[in-house]
């Protein structure tokens, strides 16, 4: 899959692309570091979503980190709430809160809960964690924006496994009825979920997938579908720019990604959905992500 279809509308220059690639790399570094530090949390999903999160928070969304409740901001709902650490990293890098706070992730009394808790962290637009729900809330935001005369957009990120939840299709049905073209769903299509079906791939657990199946479902439900390589930053920016121009339908951006992207031994393995990192693995992950070798103390959490 290439970003070619979107390439024509992108206005991102090479400098911006490089800048956002670096943001995505830093998101990934935070993800691995923080999950290792917390001895808990998810890895595969936040890593596959990192480029998309960078593009959203640093390019597509109109937000004011210094005024997180700005009424005219675009909203973001992480429907795949288990990738919270990826979102927190993007928000910290964007200036919502200090990067050091990331290390409080999962700790008692932290604003950075295991799954996103909007009552604790300003700038977090919705609480999630139970899959399938975020898209409904995002649809409410998009509809509410229209009803209250706010020219905002609602972005929501879903997992591909999450799209098995019926609620996703309830929302898809209703959003199409309301012609909510200010609603953009980004599907992190990394082809793995937590445990899933038997199939092929390295662990025999890459479930049988029919090419174009997911796109076909969204189209059948009346959505505009844009497909993109979810690790090609220029293409991502192009597709998000295209999504910004409503055509009367809600838009689904299907981003082909690799679960665990950026960390060699995690890529494509279902069991890195969530798992404890061993010290030598941590060192390898930092090397893969272009970081200096970690102190033994950090690696051996």
């Amino acid at each position, binding site marked *: 899959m290439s970003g070619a279809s979107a390439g024509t509308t992108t206005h991102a220059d090479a400098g911006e692309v490089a800048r956002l690639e670096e943001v995505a790399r830093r998101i990934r570094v935070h993800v691995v570091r923080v999950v290792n530090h917390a001895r808990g949390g998810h890895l595969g999903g936040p890593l596959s979503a990192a480029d998309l999160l960078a593009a959203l928070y640093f390019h597509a969304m109109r937000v004011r980190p210094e005024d997180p409740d700005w009424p005219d901001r675009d909203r973001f709902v992480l429907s795949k709430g288990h990738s919270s650490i990826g979102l927190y990293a993007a928000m910290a890098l964007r200036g919502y809160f200090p990067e050091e706070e990331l290390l409080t992730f999962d700790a008692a009394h932290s604003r950075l809960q295991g799954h996103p808790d*909007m009552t604790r962290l300003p700038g977090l637009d919705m609480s999630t964690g139970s899959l399938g*729900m975020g898209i409904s*809330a*995002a*649809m409410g935001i998009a509809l509410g924006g229209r*009803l209250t005369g706010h020219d905002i957009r609602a972005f929501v990120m879903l997992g591909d496994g999450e799209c098995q939840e*019926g609620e996703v299709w309830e929302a898809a049905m209703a959003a199409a009825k309301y012609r909510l073209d200010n609603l953009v769903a980004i599907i992190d299509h990394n082809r793995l979920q937590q445990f899933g079906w038997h199939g092929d791939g390295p662990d025999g657990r890459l479930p049988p997938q029919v090419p174009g199946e997911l796109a076909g479902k969204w189209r059948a439900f009346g959505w505009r579908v844009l497909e993109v390589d979810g690790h090609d930053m220029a293409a991502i920016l192009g597709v998000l720019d295209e999504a910004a121009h409503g055509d009367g339908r809600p838009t689904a951006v299907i981003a082909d990604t690799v679960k665990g992207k950026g960390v060699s031994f995690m890529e494509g393995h279902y069991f890195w959905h969530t798992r404890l990192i061993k010290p030598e693995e941590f060192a390898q992950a930092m090397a893969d992500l272009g970081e200096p070798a970690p102190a033994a103390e950090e690696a051996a959490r």
Partner: protein
Amino acid sequence: MTLPMGRPMREIFGETVAELATDDPRIVMLDGDVGSSTRGDIFEQAHPDRYLQMGIAEQNMLGVAAGLATMGLIPFISTFVSFAVVRPLDQIRVLIAQTGLNVKITPGYAGLFTGMTGMSHIIVDDVSIMRAMPGMVTVSPADDVEAAQVLRWAAAYQGPVYVRLVRDATQRLFDESYRFEFGRAVTIREGRDVTLVSTGAQTPRTVDAAELLAAEGIDAHVVHVPTIKPLDVAAIVAAADRTGRVITVEEHTVIGGLGGAVAETLGEHRPTRIDRIGLQDLYIQSGPNDALLDIYGLSAARVSDRVRELLAASR
């Protein structure tokens, strides 16, 4: 003396929320394809642009309500209790109760009166479910007069509330001078022999039962509890003290609902003998309203019989 009939709470629902919306542009109604039954259609007539048909998709409906609430709107939910509480319970929990968003869960079809639908539609445990959910206010008005006031209060209250409304006409307990106060129980009848604690559309029947008992020389104290959560602890304790003997009466399972709330409260604050009249851990079949009240022991006559039996057994 039997209390007269009032108007169906579902009509009060459509009319009152429509009126509220005339004054408050933030109010919207979300319907799960049953507006012609819940009388959401009255709201639709008045405010077509703010009547948001969500189709037969209740999980999404509650989630959309949460999103609308973040945009400053005040969504009221139009569907049946089963499809407002049980089907989208996870959405209520995560997106509404845990966030404290300002959504009004106001379904019709509470209790036995659901138009001869049978057990798939008659929810016997909604109060137990909603009362146990952290942060969820639960209100169960007695009649049409109180229902209107509860809906007005709910619109003004900031945060999620659950208001259970009845489909068909039920007896009228209050006159227009009545004022609902959130969190307060109301003494309906003073008495010395036994304290009857009741809620929702059962309260008028409980009051009628008290009159039947009075004719036999049993002087019942009757307390109506519109706000089941938070419970009016002081009033419950005082009412128990009046007679030293408590019986709860509810159109609901005897497990975990009003009876459970009163038992927990008295056990903690004033241990008292308490029996619970209500549905006995079973599902409800279809049948005409009066037949169901009789079969399941919630008509005034059957409640008074049961109270007499309980008092006789414990004497």
